[in-house]
């Protein structure tokens, strides 16, 4: 039966490749420079994500927040595993984490702060900071790291950034706020939201299924 499944997948992929071959050459873009400048950005992607399609982004952030709430709530009835002694990692990983993590953090904040001027933005920056947290968790053990981030402050940060983002989005949609300050602020809030969400997932998975 396995070959039948692979055959179905290959036929579907072949159909997709065949029908999408005619997509090229692509038509020329409509003039996007004026619309980008109108939203106070230089990066057209930031102008779309936080300007022209702001509804989309706001509800996407809500979906992300709901998924994180789901992770917390669904794991609550499960028993917490007894803390196992952390796996001894090689000193190479620990030194690499010491050297790399400050650079990763600074790079994430830079990407979020300059996301409307250059390639970047809040979502990739949040993913980068979350990956940096994963690196520290691998090098030093996740329990030691979890004690440095107390849970109440983390949830305040997470829900506070969500509320501030909704207020900013509502102001932009209802009162017509726009400009570089709005994009920078929204990108920083998205950075906080996504990185705390990633840390929530990491911490809950490790707490309920043992040490990373």
């Amino acid at each position, binding site marked *: 039966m396995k070959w039948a499944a692979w055959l179905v997948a290959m036929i579907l992929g072949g159909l997709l490749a065949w029908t999408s071959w005619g997509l090229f*050459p692509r038509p020329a*873009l409509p003039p996007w420079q004026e619309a980008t400048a109108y939203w106070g950005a230089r990066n057209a992607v930031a102008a779309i994500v936080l300007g022209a399609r702001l509804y989309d982004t706001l509800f996407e952030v809500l979906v992300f927040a709901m998924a994180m709430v789901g992770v917390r709530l669904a794991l609550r009835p499960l028993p917490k595993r007894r803390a196992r002694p952390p796996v001894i990692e090689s000193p190479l990983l620990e030194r690499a984490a010491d050297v790399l993590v400050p650079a990763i953090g600074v790079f994430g904040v830079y990407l979020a702060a300059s996301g409307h001027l250059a390639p970047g933005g809040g979502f990739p920056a949040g993913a980068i900071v979350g990956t940096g947290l994963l690196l520290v968790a691998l090098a030093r053990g996740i329990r030691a790291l979890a004690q440095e981030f107390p849970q109440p402050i983390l949830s305040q940060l997470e829900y506070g950034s969500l509320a501030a983002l909704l207020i900013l989005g509502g102001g932009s949609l209802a009162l017509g706020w726009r400009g570089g300050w709005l994009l920078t602020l929204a990108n920083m809030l998205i950075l906080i939201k996504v990185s705390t969400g990633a840390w929530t997932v990491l911490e809950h998975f490790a707490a309920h299924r043992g040490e990373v």
Partner: protein
Amino acid sequence: MEGQVALLLAVSLLVLGLGTLLSRRNVIWKLLGLNVASGGAALFLVAVGHRPQAVPPILGWGPGPAADPLPQALILTAIVIHFATLALSLVYVIFLTEHLHTQDVPKLERGEDE
């Protein structure tokens, strides 16, 4: 030309993910296949935004046509949603494993306790 190459790569990722999703019996392998397929979908949309000799769609970035920013904006949010939904579905896999002690889909459908 680069657009077509990226498109073929995206379709092969989709085939790989879809084949894993259909042929494996373990739930975690199915989720991994779904994630690979969603990566293929992301690459497909970004490839559609490609233009010959395109530069990133940023004001003042050199002459030449810009890549289409709309699929990029779509994918930017979709990647984060992939991550969130994968995390949520893995939580339910943990739940199933805790209660039914199996990750095998036919056994789960029969409600069998291993």
